[in-house]
């Protein structure tokens, strides 16, 4: 079993090597590898894989393909498959800059490396494997951002690389201090090592999960990067930091309130900035920030929420290709092609928590968790989230009557069906039947579905009302811009310092 698990972890990298040699094989190889990842997630949920596979016992080198890993693996596999199905952004993309099309095979190659690194980060439970996997994620993302190869893209890549490597150095210090005290690199030893090492580890993981102040680089990067890369970033890359963070939080009870405070702040900040935004892609990025805040609120429900959010956000970015202009101010005057509108509406509905999409079940599970005093704040964030996405719902839709098979729909002429976005939107509907989501539905159904449905209805109504009211106000409201490199570095250091102070008591 151990050999099979290691082989499964190595397959993406092997496929990446083959893609480097034979670029034309990149797409089929990536799809196969994604399928293997999804199959692994299914095998875990079917109970065919042991929860813990020790490789080197005393040092804590263990793989844990457990129930927490499965949703993250699923989102990794599906998002990478969807992005590669749609391919790199075509040149002269109306929503992005004039990025030239990258050479064939580069996107699948880097997506494969990214997938391998993400999978390792999700199943690893020792600090050094997590470190190596996260560094590899960082390098892959940096190269993905630089795919366009002009100076704007390079600057984004360099900013990301600098920030990511800095936080990983802090992580390594934390890992060293844990080893110094406990003599092992196992994740389970981190809670015993005291406040400062724990704070350094958490700070790095929080930064990798794009939470709160550490996620401030996201809006600008997502607004300028190719949409395929944005989909990978907001859909899958965030899981690399969040999965180990949730593992750590499950092992460390004192960490949970700290993360809850951070998560609520992060969710609120993201919603406020998203409401003030006038650009579709920046709005989506701020919403990622806010949703990641909700993911870390409760370790038990985080994975499901991350799954729902990752699939929906990647679908939103992929379908944003068919949007005539990312400017939100005249959104309701510009019609959308049905091929764009259907995945866009499904995915945004899921994040807003509309039944029967996956987001509804995930939000329901979150509210079932013992949120205690946080509950009104989470409800407020829910209303804000609906208001954010209600901004995308008003546009008239063209050609709704066209059959779904018409992939090269000539009538609209503004965008064809995106296979990737459709795959993700379908997953949002179909995953409700899968075994991790069923308990969430069952728990909701036990107390009667009436109350959650009523609550969701009220939330949606309040959100739409809020959006209509805000629509009459003039945007932008002049919120501070904190997205320069120096702001980002300062934010990281502040966050790390706050965590050290907060956790070393």
């Amino acid at each position, binding site marked *: 079993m151990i050999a099979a698990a290691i082989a499964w972890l190595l397959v993406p990298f092997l496929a990446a090597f083959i893609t480097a040699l034979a670029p034309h094989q990149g797409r089929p190889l990536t799809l196969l590898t994604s399928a293997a990842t999804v199959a692994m997630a299914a095998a875990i949920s079917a109970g065919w894989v042991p929860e813990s596979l020790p490789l080197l016992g005393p040092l804590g080198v263990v793989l844990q393909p457990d129930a927490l890993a499965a949703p993250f693996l699923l989102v990794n596999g599906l998002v990478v498959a969807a992005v590669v199905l749609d391919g790199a952004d075509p040149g002269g993309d109306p929503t992005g800059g004039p990025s030239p099309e990258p050479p064939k095979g580069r996107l699948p190659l880097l997506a494969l490396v990214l997938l391998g690194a993400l999978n390792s980060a999700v199943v690893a439970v020792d600090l050094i494997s997590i470190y190596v996997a996260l560094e590899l994620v960082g*390098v892959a993302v940096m190269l993905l951002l630089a795919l366009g190869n002009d100076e*704007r893209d390079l600057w984004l890549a360099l900013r990301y*690389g600098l920030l990511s490597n800095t936080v990983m150095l802090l992580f390594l210090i934390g890992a060293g201090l844990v*080893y*110094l005290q406990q003599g092992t690199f196992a994740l389970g030893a981190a809670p015993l090592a005291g406040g400062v090492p724990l704070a350094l580890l958490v700070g790095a993981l929080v930064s990798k999960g794009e939470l709160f102040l550490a996620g401030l680089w996201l809006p600008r990067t997502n*607004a*300028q990067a190719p949409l395929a890369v944005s989909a990978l970033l907001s859909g899958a890359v965030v899981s690399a930091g969040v999965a180990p963070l949730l593992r750590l939080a499950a092992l460390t009870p004192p960490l949970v309130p700290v993360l809850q405070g951070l998560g609520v702040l992060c969710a609120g900040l993201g919603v406020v900035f998203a409401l003030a935004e006038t*650009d579709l892609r920046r709005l989506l990025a701020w919403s990622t920030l806010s949703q990641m805040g909700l993911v870390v609120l409760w370790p038990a429900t985080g994975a499901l929420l991350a799954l729902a959010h990752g699939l929906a956000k990647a679908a939103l970015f992929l379908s944003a290709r068919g949007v005539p202009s990312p400017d939100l101010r005249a959104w309701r005057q510009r019609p959308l092609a049905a091929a764009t509108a259907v995945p866009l509406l499904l995915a945004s509905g899921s994040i807003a928590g509309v039944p029967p999409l996956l987001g509804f079940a995930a939000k329901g599970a979150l509210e079932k968790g013992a949120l205690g005093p946080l509950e009104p704040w989470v409800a407020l964030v829910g209303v804000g989230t609906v208001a954010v996405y209600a901004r995308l719902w008003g546009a008239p839709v063209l050609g709704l009557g066209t059959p779904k098979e018409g992939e090269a729909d000539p009538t609209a002429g503004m965008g064809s069906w995106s296979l990737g976005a459709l795959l993700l939107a379908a997953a949002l509907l179909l995953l409700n039947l899968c075994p991790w989501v069923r308990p969430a539905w069952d728990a909701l159904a036990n107390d009667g579905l009436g109350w959650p449905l009523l609550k969701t209805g009220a939330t949606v109504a309040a959100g739409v009302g809020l959006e209509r009211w805000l629509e009459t106000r003039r945007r932008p409201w002049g919120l501070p811009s904190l997205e320069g490199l120096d702001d980002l570095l300062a934010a990281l250091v502040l966050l790390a310092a706050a965590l050290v102070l907060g956790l070393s008591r």
Partner: protein
Amino acid sequence: MDPFRVLEALVLLTVLIGLLGLLLRRNLLLKVLAMDVMGTGVISLFVLIAARSGLRTPILSTDTPAAVGDGAWADPIPQAVILTGIVIGFSVQALLLVATTRLARLDPRLDTARLDRLTLGPDAPT
């Protein structure tokens, strides 16, 4: 005073100096180099942790039997771990420096605030 604690404090001071350089320098090249100073500090920390149990290089060889030299062995695990860290740090550093040389075409002074402004896209908010 325990020499290990003194060295540990010095190593962490190196990391702090690197971090301050990263925060306070406006020049991109200096920022990247400051990050390398931080990296050097982290590597020294691991070497120091390895040396806590002894100073002998933990390599068995047939030429010099284990009996030669009576010092205690250094801990091989942190050394092995940081070897990976060094390789990763080196490759990331190389990648950042390549990107920096390309960006020097845009702004030869490599001023980060200016680069932030210059690279704002046409669709960015003003």
